[in-house]
């Protein structure tokens, strides 16, 4: 088992991931992923039924950066704060040195001057690889239970 992907390393990774998004530092978000990584946000309804539709399905750094550009420059929206609460990851290590993990998350949304709402609840289904810079995501699938999105989802989960 690679200590680069041990429990503490993955939980620390998720804490940093949450801190990055909650601070609105979207430019740094693609760096949590390998260059050809897959990032998906998918309703549990589709995931359980084996249907491929996602609300976002981004392949690789290029698309992740396109999303960041969209958030900052093209998507008109009422701005909001995000607050991620991510549970301890359930880890499994593989002989090829990678690790898969699942961690529950809850994301709260607060519009400046408004009240806080439970915005999205689900679990991350992840594939990690060790790199010299620490763990990186080869894949993160956010499978959300809250199938009704509260109007629109602008920022990554």
């Amino acid at each position: 088992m690679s200590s680069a992907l041990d429990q503490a390393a993955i939980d620390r990774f998720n804490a940093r991931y949450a801190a990055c998004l909650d601070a609105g530092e979207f430019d740094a978000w693609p760096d949590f992923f390998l260059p050809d990584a897959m990032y998906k946000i998918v309703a549990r309804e589709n995931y359980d039924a084996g249907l491929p539709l996602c609300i976002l399905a981004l392949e690789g750094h290029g698309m992740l950066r396109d999303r960041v550009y969209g958030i900052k420059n093209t998507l008109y929206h009422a701005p909001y704060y995000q607050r991620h609460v991510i549970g301890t990851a359930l880890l499994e290590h593989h002989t090829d040195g990678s690790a898969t993990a699942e961690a529950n998350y809850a994301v709260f949304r607060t519009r400046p001057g408004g009240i806080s709402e439970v915005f999205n609840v689900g679990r991350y289904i992840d594939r990690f690889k060790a790199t010299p810079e620490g763990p990186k995501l080869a894949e993160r699938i956010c499978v959300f239970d809250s199938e009704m999105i509260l109007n629109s989802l602008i920022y990554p989960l």
Partner: protein
Amino acid sequence: MNAPHRNPENRIPEAVSRWAEPGSSRIPYWAYTDPDIYQRELQYFFYGPHWCYVGLEAEIPAFGDYRLSFVGERQVIVVRQRDGEIAVMENRCAHRGVRFCQQQRGKARSFVCPYHQWTYKLNGDLAGLPFRQGVERDGEKQGGMPADFDMKAHGLVKLRVARYGGLIFASFSDQTPSFEEYIGPAVMPWLDRIFKGRELTLLGVNRQRIPGNWKLMMENIKDPYHPGLLHTWFVTFGLWRADQRSRMVMDEHGRHAVMISQRNQGGASDVTQGVTSFKADMALNDPRLLDVVPEPWWNGPSVTMITLFPSLIIQQQVNSLSTRHIVPAGPGAFDFIWTHFGFKDDSEEMTQRRLRQANLFGPAGFVSADDGEVIELSQDGFRQRGADGSTLCELDGRDVAPTEHMVTETLIRGMYGYWRKELGL
């Protein structure tokens, strides 16, 4: 069925019934906020002589397959019969009113209300109920339903069903004309273009709750003015903008419509002058997000946005296809349910392309997330002002007529002309 506005007890209170202007180019804010108006919309449009979308046939391919859906605020069960027909009935037990079916999708041989085990056939007929004949004890019959209890009169409420090109529609009213007549000859060819002779495949469903009046979403897709202004992607990449060849089509009542256009190469032109959403130097890091491949059935147009009053929008925007179902939830909110589909003969590459382009649409879409946001903010504006305000839609005049361009709000005027007339306002 009597139109609600002919019932004097259902009249709108005088204070909100004033519609000062003639025509339909100024829409009073109360049309979006008043609870009595909303109840009348439900009765007359959603439960009245209109066809309401309830789903795709591809969602219930086999005998016994069912899904829950909505007509207005009423939940319905859409279920495939043994003979391949489709039944739609209200999810409400005839006994004590329980909304008994709680699985979004499933497979059933019958439906049983758990409260008292009343059992219904897949077509909604009452099949049986416990202790109907009473219970025998010491040779004596105890209880039971009255002798004249009629099983046939106590099934689930059944809706009429219309099937077209893999889409399923339902209606509570006996007065609803045939589907083809309902759609009308101006709009029907645009449905045929997408659906005729094709088998659909289901890609998945996305749901969003938008805190605005349901008509704002219909307006949004009858409004060719905004896409090249609000949506950076549309104006920058030439997906929808005022210098494109386009047509606005509507049915004879002004209730259904199609916005048709053909994409151009984008870039700067007269129509991007001063448009802040236009980004001259924007390029995608990954062009696969917009890897458009024309399909033979397009016959020209790269986008057709169809509004079927009151509850359905059908989208073809380049290679992305979806139905968008409007489920009203009070005057100030609606659920918006996107069902993306492809065709049975799609190659794997085409399916992948449709899924990549799905990133543009839906609640997180690069393009359409903006629409939900502005609808919420519109409703906020109506609410803060109160009953005396009105919206304005006078681009290209105050009358209602099809056009050969997109610099117009005629389709919105068309819908409110119909709405006003039918509600007797």
